[in-house]
């Protein structure tokens, strides 16, 4: 499953990659392609806001620039829908990074294998210490993350981490490289409950340029990850586009439709969204420290090809207002879906969107390796900078002060 060649066709599977017979890929990509955000009017938005059951067309209208002036109404309706579905409940979790080795060359990522960051992989003993330290905070749900290196962090390694996590937590999520359904089945047996895969961008051309090499370059294999995870027996799957890598409205539309079609095909699946936007990544990694700066050799540690520079320059800055618009549109399109608010966002933003559109919030976050336990010596560098550094009790207090009910676990493993 390796590709280190820029000329590898990003739409063709590599040997060993499982291929699914599914039309969801074509449907989502065709819909994204034909979606013209500028073509919607305020009348379309009003109709979408007032609709009792919203169609993909309504979702498209709510994501369009024409909906921007309606943000207050969008937020009010989203909040009502969130309350109706989830009441006051807000779910808490924290991510734990167990390895930051990566075989990919993603232009925008701190873990890019060419970036000269401190690489580290936790041993089983260290994973245990990290889990124990996190469990001490009272959390009952954990999200295990790795960089995308099947060589350094193979399925067995991740499976062992799940087994350890299961001893400390009632819910175990995974955000690791895409794999075959039999691997997901194995991880499910090891105790994993759900799988998150960010498609990054649903724009195949931009995707190709921003993922010049590494297994991640294979666009359809990544796209079908959620479906393979469900076929492997996972309870739930999460979807996201990293907003800003391409036209964020079109990408949000595609992510929403992707989730929508998966839900129709696998009605028992617990569906959720993440809504990350492109943010500054770890300055230590040397990559772009703010969204205005352009990466160069010193930041990416290699010369960008001209198409990469073009693609990188074409990225969009997504404002908070626009991010909120996306979150509310997703909530109104799929009211029953879970939604996680990223630690990339600042405290105040996070506090306001939980209960309004988001239903899940992380606390006590570190995106570095081995940062939770004092007993783990040496630490790996982080993937991106976080904007909310609050610990679990601080997040709990913030939720309670807003009349929300923190829920540590809503899942019984039987």
């Amino acid at each position, binding site marked *: 499953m390796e590709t280190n060649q820029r000329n590898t066709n990003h739409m063709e599977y590599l040997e060993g990659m499982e291929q699914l017979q599914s039309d969801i890929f074509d449907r989502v990509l065709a819909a994204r392609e034909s979606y013209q955000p500028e073509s919607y009017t305020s009348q379309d938005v009003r109709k979408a806001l007032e609709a009792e059951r919203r169609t993909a067309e309504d979702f498209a209208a709510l994501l369009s620039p024409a909906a921007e002036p309606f943000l207050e109404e969008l937020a009010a309706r989203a909040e009502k829908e969130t309350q109706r579905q989830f009441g006051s409940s807000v779910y808490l979790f924290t991510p734990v990074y167990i390895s930051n080795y990566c075989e990919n060359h993603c232009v925008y990522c701190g873990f890019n294998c060419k970036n000269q960051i401190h690489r580290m992989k936790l041993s089983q003993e260290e994973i245990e210490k990290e889990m124990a330290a996190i469990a001490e905070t009272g959390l009952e749900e954990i999200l295990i993350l790795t960089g995308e290196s099947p060589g350094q962090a193979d399925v067995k390694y991740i499976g062992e981490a799940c087994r350890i996590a299961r001893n400390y937590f009632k819910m175990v999520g995974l955000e690791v490289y895409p794999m075959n359904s039999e691997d997901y089945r194995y991880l499910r047996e090891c105790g994993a409950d759900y799988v998150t895969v960010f498609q990054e961008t649903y724009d195949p051309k931009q995707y190709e340029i921003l993922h010049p090499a590494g297994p991640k370059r294979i666009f359809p294999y990544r796209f079908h990850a959620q479906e393979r995870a469900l076929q492997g027996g996972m309870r739930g799957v999460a979807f996201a586009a990293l907003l800003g890598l391409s036209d964020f409205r079109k990408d949000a539309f595609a992510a929403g439709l992707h989730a929508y079609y998966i839900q129709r095909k696998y009605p028992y699946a617990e569906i959720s969204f993440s809504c990350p936007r492109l943010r500054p990544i770890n300055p230590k990694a040397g990559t772009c420290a703010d969204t205005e700066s352009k990466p160069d050799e010193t930041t990416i540690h290699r010369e960008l090809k001209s198409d990469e520079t073009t693609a990188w320059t074409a990225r969009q800055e997504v404002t908070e207002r626009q991010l909120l618009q996306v979150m509310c549109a997703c909530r109104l399109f799929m009211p029953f879906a879970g939604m996680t608010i990223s630690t990339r966002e600042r405290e105040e933003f996070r506090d306001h969107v939980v209960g309004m559109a988001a239903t899940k919030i992380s606390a006590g976050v570190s995106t570095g390796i081995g940062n939770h336990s004092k007993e783990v010596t040496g630490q790996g560098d982080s993937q991106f900078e976080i904007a909310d550094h609050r610990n679990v009790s601080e997040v709990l207090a913030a939720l309670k002060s807003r009349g929300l009910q923190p829920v540590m*676990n809503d899942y019984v493993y039987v």
Partner: protein
Amino acid sequence: MEEEKRIQKNLKSDQLILGGREFSSRFILGSGKYNVELIRAAVEQAGAEIITLAVRRANSDGAGKILDYIPEGVTLLPNTSGARTAEEAVRIARLSRELGCGNFVKVEIMRDAKYLLPDNQETVKATELLTKEGFTALPYMFPDLNTARDLAQAGAAAVMPLAAPIGSNRGLAAKDFIQILIDEIELPVIVDAGIGRPSQACEAMEMGAAAIMANTAIATAGEIPLMAQAFRKAVQAGREAYLSGLGRVRKTGGEASSPLTGFLRE
């Protein structure tokens, strides 16, 4: 005065009987959507004697430990939400018993994460298994007469048909089918899910429902204790109307107030 006493006496003896236990209140409160600190007030104002809670939530030791907030003396009705099969529901019920939540169990089995519609077939299987293990099973169901009969046969202590999609506050969307269950099933029929207003709860009670369960309608109200109180009154009013015998409403044509055949002597 005598009349008043007679009425009060009759109302007092009008108990809801579930699994051999008697309850004066016919309002069951759901707990899944609350800020836990408001549960006590909701229970008190609703006059609820039974509260449902998800075993998966009760299973949490963390900040949201719901069991700590439920007033003493209230009967727990743990539900098996999260179960997708009869076997899972049975395992969750066993866990509930281990957690000290008693023998009552609301059987909830869903294979649908969007509408959370109950899977009637698996629910019948689970009810049978749970009854054999000594549980008092109260199955949440889609209002279907054949299923209700199977559930009665399987040993259910009551049936809990949904009135409308859960959380929808749409009221008695399945009214005609619930009426059929009330008419045909000997067990108490507890209307669950979709009741959004006290008036809808009242109407279900007028129809002859044995009890009402609501969660979202109260949990998302602006003033939770006040809405809880409104539901208590509505359920009570509906029950009294039912007991008193509603005047018949004909769907077509008129009806003479004295019988047409009243002149007959034999």
